[in-house]
């Protein structure tokens, strides 16, 4: 079972559940105010959205909500945690991933397709992925800022770097590789009708866990 955490203001939880189902997995919601993950949780998704309306800082309030205690225990025990967009911001605010997400270089929201390079293939998420992925970004505060020398950068925007991230980082993992955050939205690339199926591989990795 994959648990998709739902905060007030989460937006992409339904899409994440459909993405898990598209690769043959089962998914259910975890409520932000709960103190345990659903029984049988094998992996966790923190979906995109504007949890708590981005009040204070994106992800800041959600990172301190009750559900994050069991998410942290799950991660500490080696379980997979995937944070997408706002989920990535929550993981950084929670200290489960290094760095922070700053406002985009353009200072405005950016919604468009991007080409990602998989630059670290040694995480449970990326082992089976192809070399490049076509997946959309859609965010206002998506420029990763941190120390590239000490961070596992897993996904890169390559030369284009549309948001102005340090080291063109699109997705970063913790040292163990079991917690991954990325700004692009793999749940929006799960069907030929949507223009790409390159996002399915990340959800397949969760289902394999």
């Amino acid at each position, binding site marked *: 079972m994959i648990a998709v955490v739902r905060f*007030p*203001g989460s*937006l*992409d939880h*339904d*899409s994440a559940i*459909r*993405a898990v189902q598209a690769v043959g997995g089962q998914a259910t919601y975890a409520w932000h105010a709960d103190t345990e993950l659903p029984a049988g949780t094998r992996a966790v998704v923190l979906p*995109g*959205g*504007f949890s*708590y*309306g*981005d*009040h204070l800082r994106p992800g800041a309030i959600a990172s301190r909500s009750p559900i994050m205690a069991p998410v942290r225990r799950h991660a500490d025990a080696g379980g997979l945690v995937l944070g997408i967009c706002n989920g990535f911001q929550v993981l950084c605010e929670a200290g489960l991933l290094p760095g922070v997400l700053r406002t985009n270089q353009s200072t*405005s*929201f*950016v*919604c*468009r397709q991007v080409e990602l390079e998989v630059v670290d293939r040694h995480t449970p998420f990326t082992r089976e992925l192809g070399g490049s992925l076509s997946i*959309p970004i*859609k965010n*206002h505060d998506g420029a990763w800022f941190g120390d590239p020398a000490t961070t596992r950068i897993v996904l890169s925007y390559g030369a284009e770097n549309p948001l102005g991230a340090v080291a063109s980082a699109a997705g970063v993992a913790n040292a163990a590789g079991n917690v991954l955050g990325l700004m692009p*939205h793999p*749940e*929006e690339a*799960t*069907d*030929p*009708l*949507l223009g790409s199926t390159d996002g399915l591989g990340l959800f397949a990795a969760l289902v394999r866990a």
Partner: protein
Amino acid sequence: MSAPLHRQLGLSDEEFAAIPGLIGRPPTDPELVMFSLMWSEHCSYKHSRSLLRRFPTTGPHVLQGPGENAGAVDVGDGWAIALKVESHNHPSAVEPFEGAATGVGGIVRDILALGARPIALLDSLRFGTLDSPRSRHLFTRAVAGIGHYGNCIGVPTVGGEVVFDDRYEDSCLVNAMCVGLVPADGMLRAAAFGEGNLLVLIGNRTGRDGIGGASVLASAELSADDDSKRPSVQVSDPFTERKLIDCCLELAGGGLLLALQDLGAAGLTSAASEMAAKGGVGLEIDLDRVHLREEGMAAAEILVSESQERMLGLVDPANLDAVLAMCARWELDANVIGTVTGTGNFTARHHGEIVVDIPASALTDDAPSYAVPRDPAPAPVALDLDAVPVPGDLANAWLALLGRPNIASKRWIYQQYDHLVGANTVRRPGGDAAVIRIPGMSRALAVTTDCAERHCELDPRGGGRASVFEAARNIACTGGLPYAASDCLNFANPEKGSTGWRLAEAIEGMSEALEAISVPVVSGNVSLYNESPERAIYPTPVIGMVGLLEDAAASVGHAYGAEGDLVVLLGGGLPRLDASEWLGTASGSPARPDLGREAALVSAMVTAARRGVVTSAHDVSDGGIAVTLAESALAGGIGCTVTLPGGRRADEVLFGESGERIVVTCRPEALAALRESAGDVPVAVIGAVGGDTVEVSVDGMSVRLELERARDVYETTLTKAIA
């Protein structure tokens, strides 16, 4: 301030004099404020109501026509689509970010009031030209406001249009459209019923923001002292709106609501009086139970506050605990503020005293209705082509046209909107219409907004038709069958000049065209008084249209596909420069669209798309066929070589507009099937796809556009214009 209160509130002396006859005594001050708002143009449509009856509003698939918060049509498999367009013009002119943002919030709650999940947003925008600093400010801030709100509530903004013209310098237009999805048998309505049932106010606290918005802003001309109206603009809170969407949908899905109504213009007054009048019941409201943002608010202020993100639900007392628990789970304030009574009266208590006690129908059904003067505008003067110089270098003229803000790519706008959220966007912004798959179904919706405002200025009947057919062609180009429409009639002051005649004529033209393609209007909105002492807007009757695709996977885009595809012109429209973007002004005498031929073209396009015989389709509109060909080439990254029928001036052939034309491409072997699909509609093979230029020959003369150069102009114009 010596003027009597009713005049300060915008009521005429005659309107004021009529009130005692309706309620049997002079009104209290709170009652007078309520009348002033409910009888404003924005709430009562007093200058347009009689004209709006002309619209076709029925059809076998119509589940809800005009009169509710939004209209709805059946799309099969037990599902219905709710749709509505609404204006937020005057607030956006005063404070563009919050005005545009709350415009989005309001239209979303109209859809939510039916118990529908909002699944798509569109925005129809008009501003002055971008060389005006004021218009640049209004435009960029309105786009930011729309993006901020739509992005944060998780409803994709998938389409719309924008036109820049000096006529909108003083009165910008910000119209928002929302489409929602609701189980056909679970649709909610606003009518209150059942004595003893409870009114539960859910959402934001009520403050002093937006007080008098409907009468002050939406129903009078704007003038130089606009700054003093700023407190009338509401403040947006999209986070609360998102929780309101989640909460209300869970309440509706659980069968916990008997009726639902959003609080928009005139706030609680409008919401409650409409619920009561529609249900033929009375309501008793205790203003002390309304959760307030600030202390010391007067009864009238609570009654008419336009604080955003509030919904009014009707709840069976047996379900009250469950409703309040759900609201608490979503961290939303919710209070029982009143009950349904059998009196027919809208009664309000404040600090224990009855401050309002009037028949609810006096506010709604008894609102005045005025016939507008119908003085015809002078007939348009035929265009003197000899006075229009033929451009010396047609290739440069073509490039310059692609670089006009009205033609150039709108990527700068839609890239700031989340047009994907929900993972249902099959055709993204930038084409003729956006295509959204209906979650859980193989069907999809095509959605667009359109208006032919220059044509409407010259001939409102013809322009009304042109607006509808433009929308229908855009829908048909994606493979969608035009299915339902909503309108937003943006006009100048109807009490002056020929505006009333233009309004009536535009409605007539739109209705004729809608009847020709069997599309009902199920909802709509009117915005009048869009003028300043210096200038009035063009008549701008925006049409929002939804089309139905049986198979989401069979939708058609506007990008050229493969080398060797044939370029084919469908339809018999003759290119003319009258009212064209090339002229850039409302001049000439544009041809009135032919109802039968336009409808046949739409039908042929839908048939061809459904049979899978076309590889792309793009309708000929602003900028003429030269722009159509260039846009398809740019989108596909491949050029074409085309020969166009001549016998007219080359600038007419290239840049002339007229409607009734669609450019499609098909594989050579599919041509026979395309001709068969087209029936009696003219089909002309004009060229083939290939190469890295768009080359057009007219009467032996050839004009060539290099794609890379064109792309640079087309893609960077808007960014440069606002820098």
